[in-house]
């Protein structure tokens, strides 16, 4: 059973995630939204780590590594997409 400290930590991470998603909703430019997506991906990784500590199961940490990789890929690929305005590497349009 997950203890009280980890529940409080999960609540704090939830508040931080909601703050990051507010930046996604309210960001004036597309890069602000991208920034918020990266922040919330990092917060989700932290939440999975806290869940793994609370249940005392080490295999949940693999999912944390997976979420970390996914957040990195989303941020970098979307930033490259916006930078190239949708044009592929050697493509014409």
């Amino acid at each position, binding site marked *: 059973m997950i203890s009280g400290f980890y529940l409080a930590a999960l609540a704090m991470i939830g508040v*931080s995630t909601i703050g990051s998603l507010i930046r996604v909703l309210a960001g004036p430019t597309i*890069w602000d939204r991208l*920034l918020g997506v990266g*922040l919330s991906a*990092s917060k989700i*990784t*932290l939440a999975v780590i*806290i869940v*793994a*500590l609370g249940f005392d199961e080490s295999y949940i940490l693999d999912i944390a590594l997976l979420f970390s990789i996914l957040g990195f890929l989303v941020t970098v690929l979307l930033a490259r997409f916006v930078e190239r305005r949708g044009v592929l590497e050697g493509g014409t349009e």
Partner: protein
Amino acid sequence: MNVIVIAGQAVILLGLLITGFGVYTVLRLDSFYARMVVTSKVEAMGFVTVVIGAMIVSGLSAATLKLATILLFELLTVSVSAHAIARSAWVSGYRIRTVTTSEARRD
């Protein structure tokens, strides 16, 4: 509930406070590049602090190695993704409308 677990939980709490301050600052600042700096430094510091606290709690086990892997990956990729977003904004022509140091009055 020995002393090491309590110390690790204190470090985790410190990291979560740093992360909360980072999110508050991201919501508070009004310039994109300032928010960029907060993301790449303060949030990375909060993440590293939380993971170090988790390593202290879990002690010497396989979980510590996995946490070290996550920590190494995050340290490698936080700066890269922040650089990718900032370069995307700069290449696309997004600038801050303030007086820079090259345009400021020189004495």
